[in-house]
């Protein structure tokens, strides 16, 4: 289960990434963040974000037009 959840529904690029960054910065290493987004572009972007920042993208799921990204803080 996620330690924190960020609902970025309705927000468009780059807000989901910026809010993810802010949410992670308040968390301890190893904690899990769930990000919910409706922006289709965030599928590639969250992956790129994790790739660059070293945070781990544990899983990506789609559910009725919503994307749920599970990220483990580095």
């Amino acid at each position, binding site marked *: 289960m996620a330690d924190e959840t960020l609902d970025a529904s309705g*927000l*468009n690029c780059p807000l989901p990434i*910026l809010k993810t*960054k802010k949410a992670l910065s308040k968390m301890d290493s190893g904690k899990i963040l769930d990000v919910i987004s409706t*922006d289709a572009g965030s599928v590639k972007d969250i992956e790129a974000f994790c*790739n*660059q920042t070293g945070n781990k993208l544990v899983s990506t799921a789609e559910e009725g037009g919503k994307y749920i990204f599970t990220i483990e803080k580095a």
Partner: protein
Amino acid sequence: MSESKKMTIIATKGTFDWAFPPFIIASTGVAMDKEVTIFFTFYGLNLLLKDTSKLRVSPMGNPAMPMKMPMGPKWLQKIDFGPKIPNILWSLPFTEHLATYLMKKTMKKNGVATLNELRSMCQEFDVKFIACEMTVDLFGYSKDDFIDGVEFAGAATYFDECDGSNHNLYM
């Protein structure tokens, strides 16, 4: 992970539409662990003004801009009026106000951040804002016209910021 941790942007444009790319790329850059500097010069100085409400998008001589209605019936929203309206009409008064109003409305509908929101985010993320001193003087600005936290310097300082940076963008 990439090796270079620095990024610089030269922001030169001062219309409402072109105010977005520097702040979007800069804030995202910080989110991607970069240290970001924006050098604002010429019309790019508009982006640092305390009052950004006077920034406008001009349809005049802007032929690539799609012009779709953000409201009304679906069939109407699909029509791109951009290529249909003769450019000469955009020389009429208040067309810039109308275009700016419609663009803001479209952005809000699409969940795009406002200009001030993106700029504050950049400041919160410690993006370094440098205003070109020469153009500040050239256009008769006073330093009080700009938001707090802006440094004033010249082109040489920009080059100093570029040192060790792999991403140097001109916008």
